[in-house]
């Protein structure tokens, strides 16, 4: 569950980290009820109006070194999204990434200092974001970020869902054994 990496020559600095925001996320059309201005207006005129573009499922992923700060940042973003009228589907946390950082002396292999850092992660999932609101949401989320935290906004994919669950090792072992033994039997034909 936890992965360890060894990095050399990492600078510790207290600056804001602002992450790149992806452009052009595919939009979906939302079927909103449209109201007539005038009772006698024909229906086809209203149905001809273009749909309001809506982003389906976006993950705002926050990563940082101090989880108290990170959690309050997540709470603030959640609050802002609710205030804006955007529906927040789910918020979750994934296990921290544990980093062991070794700083070497210049031009040598002698270890100068060693640090154990944890990179904590929190996610806020927003659903049905209207296109005109996304710009403001991103700007506000970026402005709330405390020091040492980074924000990553992306679409929710199957991999993001899979990471949250602990894999069932027994099941995987059994499946591996089955494959080693030559694959599963072909299904029997149903008796008439």
């Amino acid at each position: 569950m936890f992965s360890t990496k060894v990095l050399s020559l990492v600078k510790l600095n207290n600056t804001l980290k602002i992450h790149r925001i992806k452009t052009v996320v595919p939009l979906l059309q939302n079927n909103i009820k449209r109201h007539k201005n005038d009772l006698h207006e024909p229906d086809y005129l209203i149905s001809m109006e273009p749909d309001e573009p809506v982003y389906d499922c976006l993950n705002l992923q926050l990563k940082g070194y101090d989880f108290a700060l990170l959690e309050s940042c997540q709470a603030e973003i959640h609050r802002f999204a609710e205030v804006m009228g955007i529906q927040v589907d789910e918020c979750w946390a994934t296990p921290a990434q544990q980093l062991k950082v070794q700083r070497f002396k210049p031009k040598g292999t002698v270890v100068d200092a060693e640090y154990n850092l944890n990179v904590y992660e929190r996610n806020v999932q927003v659903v049905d974001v209207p296109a005109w609101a996304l710009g403001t949401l991103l700007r506000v989320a970026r402005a709330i970020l405390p020091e040492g935290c980074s924000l990553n906004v992306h679409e929710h994919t199957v991999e993001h869902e899979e990471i949250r669950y602990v894999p069932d090792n027994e099941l995987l072992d059994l499946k591996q054994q089955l494959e080693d033994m030559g694959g599963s039997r072909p299904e029997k034909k149903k008796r008439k």
Partner: protein
Amino acid sequence: MRGVSTKLQWDIMTGVCVERLPIVTPPLNDMQKKYKELLWTMEVEKSLKSDHEIRLENDKIQEEMLKSDSRDVDLDAVSKITGQDFEDAANEELAQFKFGSIETEADKKGDKTTPERCLQRHLVLVAPIKLGSDLKTILPQGKWAEGETLRQTAERVLTECCGPELKVQFISNAPCGFYKYKYPPGEQKGGKVGAKVFFYYASYKSGADKNPDKAKFNWLTRNELTETLPLKYNKSVQEFLIEETY
């Protein structure tokens, strides 16, 4: 029945707000400091003991046992680096660490044309734009052409005004602000009463702004914007810019 001719005709323009975000966290104002201390006290009260605190306590117990000379003193455990030593060494390392300076060269000179000034503030790009016969310092602005979307107009306006080297990131397809003004009576050409400007927000990534005319571009903070821009225009612009807290 209202005819088309009696409706006022407006020119559609897009303005681009290129903002350089702060690089260093700004200092906290009084209320923020008080709230931060409150949150910190609450956090300390509610949380469990950390590994380091447990280690300090164990060290103290070991020390007491050593002093009282009781049996079962495990010398191996005692001769390790104590938690207090580790804390002192860490504090010393922090004291020796040199932070980069917040004031840049441009700050000392008072040079407003680079985005490398005022690292703790938001900076907005402002350019001298020709409106009719006047030359005014406002956000880069240009007219919408037939067949292109407003966002494409905004991108085009920016490359025309500042050159292709300025790298920016547009946030969304929708504009974030709006300003409407009427042309002076002598300059109402083509039946257009005035112009409607839709502002687009873009964040500055890198690159220098090179104008072919070598006109002066300035990167201004919020206060400087209020001083430089015309009154009502400034009001519309400040509405979509995030307020600074100090």
